[in-house]
């Protein structure tokens, strides 16, 4: 019954036998022990489980592990390994810390990864564009304002690095 999958997660190659129904988020958390990706609703409505799948932000609670076969996955634990980060905190992570973009922290990994994709697609977003991009990630603590500040901080920082 188990199916073999091969994928790369945070730049490391993995080969696993998984049940076809195993969700990607449970594969990451329970099989690989990468518990930084959170499960908030199991219905792709809250965004806490967002990871990058081949560079695109996806909600890993509604992706099967077998669908990720052959893919490259980046989770919050691997963000420091991304080109923009250069082994340190990613500018988006830095922004969340600098601007108090989190309180309880549960939505934060998903928020950060969605923001990373936003800034790759649109390096200089307006407030409205940030709000729209984050509309699929729910936060109950911050009221979003400081998250927007965090994204702006990261945009500025990434721009200055490019120069």
């Amino acid at each position, binding site marked *: 019954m188990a199916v073999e999958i091969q994928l790369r997660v945070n730049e490391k190659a993995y080969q696993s036998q998984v*049940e076809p*129904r*195993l969700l990607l988020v*449970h594969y990451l*958390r*329970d099989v690989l*022990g*990468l*518990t*930084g*990706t*959170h*499960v*908030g*609703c*199991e*219905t792709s*409505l*809250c965004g*806490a489980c967002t990871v990058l799948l081949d560079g695109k932000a996806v909600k890993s609670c509604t992706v099967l592990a077998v669908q990720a076969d052959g893919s490259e996955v980046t*989770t*919050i*634990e691997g*963000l*420091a390994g991304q080109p923009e980060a250069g082994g340190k*905190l990613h500018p988006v*992570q830095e922004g*969340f*810390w*600098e601007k*108090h973009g*989190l*309180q*309880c*922290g*549960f*939505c*934060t*990994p998903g928020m*950060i990864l969605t923001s990373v994709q936003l800034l790759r697609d649109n390096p200089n977003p307006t*407030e409205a564009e*940030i*709000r*729209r991009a*984050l*509309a*699929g*990630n*729910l*936060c*109950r*603590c*911050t*009221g*979003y*304002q*400081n*998250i*927007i500040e965090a994204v702006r901080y990261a945009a500025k920082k990434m721009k200055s690095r490019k120069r």
Partner: protein
Amino acid sequence: MVTAMRYIGKPLKRKEDPRLIQGLAHYVDDLRLPEMHYVGIVRSPYAHARIRSVNIGKAKAAPGVVAVLTGQDLRGAIGPVPCAAQIPDMKSAPRPVLAFDKVRFVGEPVAVVVATDRYAAHDAVDLVEVDYEPLTPVVNPEKSLAKGATVLHEQFKDNLAYRWELEGGDLKKAFKQADKVIHQRLINQRLIPVSMEPRGVVAEYRPGEKQLTIWSSTQIPHLMKTQVAVMLGVPESSVRVIAPEVGGGFGSKLNVYPEEALVGYFSMHLGKPVKWIESRRENFLATIHGRDQIDDVEVAIKRDGTVLGLRCKIIADLGAYYQLLTPLIPTLTGLMISGCYKIPAVRVEITGVFTNKMATDAYRGAGRPEATYLIERVMDLVAAELKKDPVEIRRKNFPQPKEFPFTTPTGLIYDSADYQKTLDRALKNANYAKLRKDQVRQRKQGRHIGIGLSTYVEICGMGPSSAMPAGGWESATVRVEPTGKVTVLTGSSPHGQGQETSFAQMGADVLGLEPDDVQVVHGDTAVVPYGIGTFGSRATAVGGTAVYKSLVKLRDKMALIAGHVLGEDPQKLVFRDKKIFSKAGKKSINFGEAVAAAYVAKTLPPGVEPGLEATTFFEPSNFTYPFGAHVCAVEVDGETGDVRLEKYVAVDDCGNVLNPMLVDGQVVGGIVQAVGQALLEEAVYDDQGQLITGELMDYAIPRASDIPWMETARTVTPSPVNPLGVKGVGEAGTIGATPALANAVADALAPFGVRHVDLPMKRERLWQLMHKARAPSKARRTK
């Protein structure tokens, strides 16, 4: 307050954040123990039914399943769900951890499955067959008391849980002297807290040591330890509760639920670690709800806008059973009913009723948002009745700063305030005069612009033990370790508020160190002395004060030691830059040297004990009463009924501030939760008692794209209740903002002849109000 204020009052970045932004923190579901087993819970699909039989045969035979137990199996084995609130003549209807004869709300646990794997547990839940005999559900709280209504708890003759009355001042006289009396029915809809992390419990029992460790996503680890020990009938000294990283609470985790005891029980009986993680659906169904009141208010006024008296009848829908504080919450509405106004006479009658729904309990604000919504709508109704500006009505009824401490007709003593100043600042920041001027012009252009304000006061820093069901004090132990690093153990249980940072700021300033020298530890009952927890905006005002007092005790002891070494008067020493200086600054020793002296204990002054540890159990003399003024502007779309929030200005006063960045974060987050109540959120049960807003698809919490930029500012009126002068701020935004928004939308629709709009002010509701006003004949025809 302290010798040098280098860090207190500064927006220091959080010490909590590095682990949280890198995915390195540990919430309950992140715990991995060898041989972990998983719990799945069978829950009632009926709101009200008799359980005829439960067939567990198929579930028990399913792969990976190690145990299936029903309510009958566990009857008497685990004590009922605790309720700490006591109200005279309150009916007590204890909730069993698993229903065994009847179910009384959709989502009530009926049986438990334990399996070796998460998926297997969930599969087996579906294999448990329960035969129910459906009974008529009681859904409408007003009809719950009607003659012939089905009774939830058959040992009683009706669904009345309690009546509670409070009267102060001469109400008869007030209504006799009134020029006018205004009536209004206000509904504070049922809400669902929706912390982003659902609840979760892990339990590990070690039979040799007879030690049960429970990790729970909770705001009250110590109270939980006591309650779980009682429920399981084990000595409290053998139970340890750990609140690991907690992903939001908002009151929903200020509780003890069946799952903590059940998971503990299974761990003890299987001898394996057991995990239960709540699904979002379960979180909607079986974690406490908030609000749910129907308030009929009558207010006696003079023609000049003076409010003479207020009478209110409250029906509080408590749900099927009590949780920890369920019956108490509506009484907070009663106590705070006069808001920040000088109303000489009030009377409140609360009728708490049972219905076939999940229990209501403390949800961010807990009783005060209801009071504030009520009194702030009343102020605007008075203004509308007298055709006066709402600002004028509020000014007329404020107590003046010199009247503080101010005693309310409900018997509370407000500690300190200047309501006028905060309102003036909010009006200035919002440019209220211009907003009003623009509104006249915009209305002429056919736009539906509304301006709303609210001036609120809340009751925080909970609280003196005399007024609390289970102790209102808080504990703190501070230890300077032999290496000179400082450990702060707090009975508060922060879950996002940031006290690992703000308490470290305090430690650094009192002892002349850096915040990184101070480590704040919380949430582990084996490590931290007994405490109460984080709720009711108390962690800084009560918990922080306990920390401060312990810090001062330690500093004083270190001064004795340093003074002895230096040959200086201990009272004149200054702690700064990791050194202890003589007053003139000529002599000093390193902080670490004084610490070493305390531990090596060879040069201690006579009568001074070795070691550096101090504990305080701080009992506050009163609550604190933060306050503020919020102003907002909305535009209602005449075609769709959509509300666009154009401007939001908040000026809050929570006394002194330890870290302004954290305070602003609390305020903005709170306002956005209030936007949810005002515009979007409503827990709806249908006439069969099914929760039809039982998922994030149907229950709309605010998204980033729903809201504008919130402008915050502060006035500072220190509290005399504690030496820090702090008041608390966790609930302010949620309390102040809903009425401001409600007043703005009512104002926007005033030209349609609309006097009041019920919450949540959803587009269909507003569209209908406008539509009826525009085309009365057509509306009548289609009815």
